[in-house]
């Protein structure tokens, strides 16, 4: 009887240690782990791409101001939102909540850390100027406020640069020598 009790308590001790280790891993990951997807519109403003994109025909570059001409696409500042939202735009009752949230939001409600390593050159504007549409690389995922950054690697760059993908679009084959994109 006593032996059994001792056995039980030893088992309990090991279970507790296992739990502590697993729990500490989860806790550490929760506190310090990098988010798998870069920071999105999860800030203070409930933003919906679908409402702004196809439904009212707003171009991506209206908010991501650098996407057509500059190296980075940029995230919009609050001022970019207020360009349109200064006026009550719809009779949708949700808009009042939005107005109050917008009033409280800070000047740069969104931030996006670029996941490009520093030995890689990528210029957003050059690709847009060559006629590549936003959805060609980013997919339609952004419509659900999801972003496809994890899909990008050198393989996908090279396939398109060699002219293997997007054949129907008729892009010109682009440079494939190393120093075109690497430094």
């Amino acid at each position, binding site marked *: 009887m006593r032996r059994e009790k001792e056995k039980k308590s030893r088992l309990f001790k090991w279970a507790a240690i296992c739990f*502590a280790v697993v729990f500490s891993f989860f806790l550490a990951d929760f506190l310090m782990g990098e988010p798998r997807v870069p920071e999105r519109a999860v800030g203070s403003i409930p933003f919906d791409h679908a409402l702004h994109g196809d439904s009212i025909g707003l171009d991506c570059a209206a908010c991501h101001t650098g996407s057509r001409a500059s190296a980075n696409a940029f995230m919009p500042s609050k001022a970019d939102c207020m360009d349109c939202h200064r006026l009550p735009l719809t009779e949708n009752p949700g808009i009042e909540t939005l107005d109050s949230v917008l009033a409280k939001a800070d000047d740069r409600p969104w931030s996006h850390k670029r996941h490009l390593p520093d030995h890689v*050159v990528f210029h957003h504007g*050059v690709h847009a100027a060559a006629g590549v549409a936003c959805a060609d690389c980013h997919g339609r995922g952004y419509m659900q406020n999801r972003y496809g950054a994890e899909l990008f690697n050198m393989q996908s760059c090279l396939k398109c640069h060699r002219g293997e993908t997007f054949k129907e679009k008729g892009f010109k084959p682009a440079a494939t020598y190393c120093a075109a994109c690497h430094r």
Partner: protein
Amino acid sequence: MGMDRREFIKSCSLVAVMGLLFGCRKIPLEELAGDLPSLKRFEDEVKLALSQAKKSLDLVKIPTPGALKIPGASTLNRFGMAIDLDSCDGCGKCILACNLENNVPLVPNEDAARGRFMHWVDMRGSAPFMCAHCGNAPCERVCPTGAANHTPDGLSAMMYKRCTGSRFCGANCPVQARKFNFNDAQKLGLARQFNREVPLRDKGVMEKCSLCLHRLQNDRLKFKTSLTVGETAEEWRGRGVKTACAEACPKNAIIFGNWLDEKSPLVKLTKNRVLYAPRELADLDPSVVFMRGRR
């Protein structure tokens, strides 16, 4: 006073949590210490290198570099430099400018005493000496991974992430223009990223003059996004770009430009000059040449 089981498990898990939290930090330990080398150390190292400079430079006459003779070469661009030996006084400002532009690391004292610097620009015969970006580059032929390769516009480029550190290229370069990272400069606190445009190199990677590749890349991208009517992206000639050393030279003795562009300062200023190259490179079609005297 003994510790009961509950207390013991508690303290164990606390230690485990703290260790994991420490392990998950984003900043490496060395950066927490914050010991980046000062600018003064870079300046002192250049002075030391100048005092140890080789005195001789064996030059032979060469014709003006023309279009590259490699497959896929551009017929519009071939970048290069000419170093005017008549105006250069060997002040060494180009070396410091290059080091700061390209984040060239310092070397430990014992290496410095033996003259083994990482400087992409050396002083030889009291004139700056760097990779000549040979059109027929012997270093690229022996690279087992293709890390050393040629761009269509005449740069002998180095892909650091591809380099496995065989050092064959360094052995096959007749003028020792290539520098090998024997030390982990970042770990030793000898590297500092002055310029965000240029990545730091790891231990076991070969490096050398890139002819300020990043400046050319940036200019090309800028040109492509600001095309005027009737211009195409293929017409980029790299006009207006200067390397860091050319920019820093107080005597304008280093001239950067495009050998195939009539409007380039390089073509204009070398027109009536006699061009020279180091004897070892004369047959290898160098892009970086020396000039002295008038024709």
